[in-house]
């Protein structure tokens, strides 16, 4: 399986982090970064990571089944909208934001738009409790999200814009 030179370089750095006989430690980091490039955890990817980490494909499958950010077979959208409804967000409107997104996008939990551009997920605590309600689009955080801001973000995505082109609402992380 061939990856971009950047990902190949990253894999090399990953394997160098752990003792030579402990390549298996690189399994999860490899999977999550490879998924960003491949789209999902494919059978081919499982075999490739197994080979590189010196374990069996079954040992990789075991791991894939455990972690909620690893998506076997079905890729999430290019822009994966994750809305937290856990307790701190729930108290200040997180669940309502999630319902709003479901209605607007006509998508449910872990569903992907027909063009593969947007997907939606109701997520557990993402660590933004003091700036709730919070959402993540891919790996970027949006804090203190209002229904109007969510509308702007979703309108923009539905018009085919990238999140950074939706200037009215900015991510907060550096």
């Amino acid at each position, binding site marked *: 399986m061939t990856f971009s030179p950047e990902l190949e370089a990253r894999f090399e750095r990953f394997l160098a*982090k752990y*003792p030579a006989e*402990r390549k*298996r*430690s*690189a*399994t*999860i*980091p490899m*999977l*999550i*970064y490879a998924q960003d490039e491949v789209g999902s955890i494919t059978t081919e990817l499982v075999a490739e990571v197994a080979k590189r*980490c010196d*374990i069996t494909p079954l*040992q990789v499958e*075991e*791991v894939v*089944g*455990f*972690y*909620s*950010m*690893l998506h076997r077979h079905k890729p999430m959208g290019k822009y994966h909208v994750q809305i937290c*409804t*856990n*307790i*701190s967000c*729930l*108290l*200040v409107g997180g669940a309502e934001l999630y319902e709003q997104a479901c209605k607007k996008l006509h998508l449910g939990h872990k569903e992907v738009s027909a063009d593969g551009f947007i997907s939606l997920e109701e997520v*557990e*605590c*993402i*660590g*933004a*409790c*003091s*700036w*709730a309600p919070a959402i*993540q689009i891919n*790996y*970027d*955080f949006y*804090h203190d999200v209002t229904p109007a801001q969510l509308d702007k973000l979703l309108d923009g995505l539905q018009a085919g814009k990238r999140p950074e082109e939706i200037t009215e609402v900015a991510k*907060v*992380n*550096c």
Partner: protein
Amino acid sequence: MLYNQPNPLEVRLLSRRFGLPNSQSIETYLANEGYKAFEKAIGMSQEDIISEVKASGLRGRGGAGFPTGLKWGFVPRQSPKPKYIMVNADESEPGTCKDRLLIEYDPHQLIEGCLIAGLAVGAQQGYVYIRGEYRYLIEVMDRAIEEAYARGYLGDNILGRGVKFNLATHSGAGAYECGEESALLESFEGKRGNPRIRPPFPAVAGAYASPTILNNVETFCAVPPIILNGGAYFAGLGTPKNGGTRFFCLSGHINKPGVYELPMGFNLMRMINEVGGGMRNGRKLKAVIPGGSSCPVLKADECDLAMDYDTLAAAKSMLGSGGVVVMDEDTCMVKAALRIMRFYAHESCGWCIPCREGTTWLRKLLQRFHEGMGTRSDIVLIGDLSRNMLGRTFCPLGDAAALPTISIVEKWREEFEAHLDGKPCPYEKSSRLVAV
């Protein structure tokens, strides 16, 4: 840019560099006492470093509150295997968002904490296990580590003083359970995040079955100020046996939610009213989760207490991870219990049956209850099921799911009764009955 404004009541020790221009950079760090504690520690014996940490009264900031110096003392002096430093940056406890700031605003403080821990136990390799959702922090940490190598604060011969220490980040991929120390180690080794039976504890057999110091981000970050100012200074900031300051993450129905560094033992009502700006919209306080969703919930009239490990334990709750979730009078406690249980049912790793089955059945029971289809005997059943999970699992996730549930059923029984006989939730604006 800071995510929330600091409060004058804060004692900013670990957060003293937050908000400085370019606070992530090694230049800012070095210009503000950076790596001074490490240089001091190089001249100290291992015993002296550990006794300074013991004297500081520092206790684990991840939630369990185990004395850090004592933990470090459990690492065997002589070991045929290499020793490891492991940073738990898998912050996932609902209500908790402090480690994010410690890494985002001051990553070098964490590196320095690891370096000193390495000196204290003779470890030459460390890892920072960061939850997968915090991808941008992995990048922040990687940049800081690269700077530290370039300036000679990491590597095989640090500052030419013959000290060797290497540090690397490690990404998780979405699992609350991996914040539990033994599950984190399994995950680190490239496996499912199932917990291990203890003993042996990580200090003896941790990463790769080798002696490992595993602490929370905030715990490691407290070490440089302790070494620099002395354990006694740190201890003096808090209450007896509860040294120092700690990060409290205020969230929920308050006017000024945010992460604030306050002295250990700070009064909870003052925290809500004076730091958090009081209740939103003039509503009354109903309940507080004092330290993340795993803690027994406090009623409004139980909140006049000092926020330290021992006072909270005496109040039959926990200081936990510092996540203070404030709920007003319009909060449905059945719904709160349900949302918390949905989380634990989702995150239970499935390894221990009482937790796997208990959380799932409790989720179903609470769901049915909230939808108005519960029976009077369900109230007893929810309590019984929860109590049967206590102490019957490898890791504390089972207890974490049971404890808040037990407290809510016991303290707000009347709210459960108000949902009986098909009555719609009294707190929901519209009643939506969903068939089970």
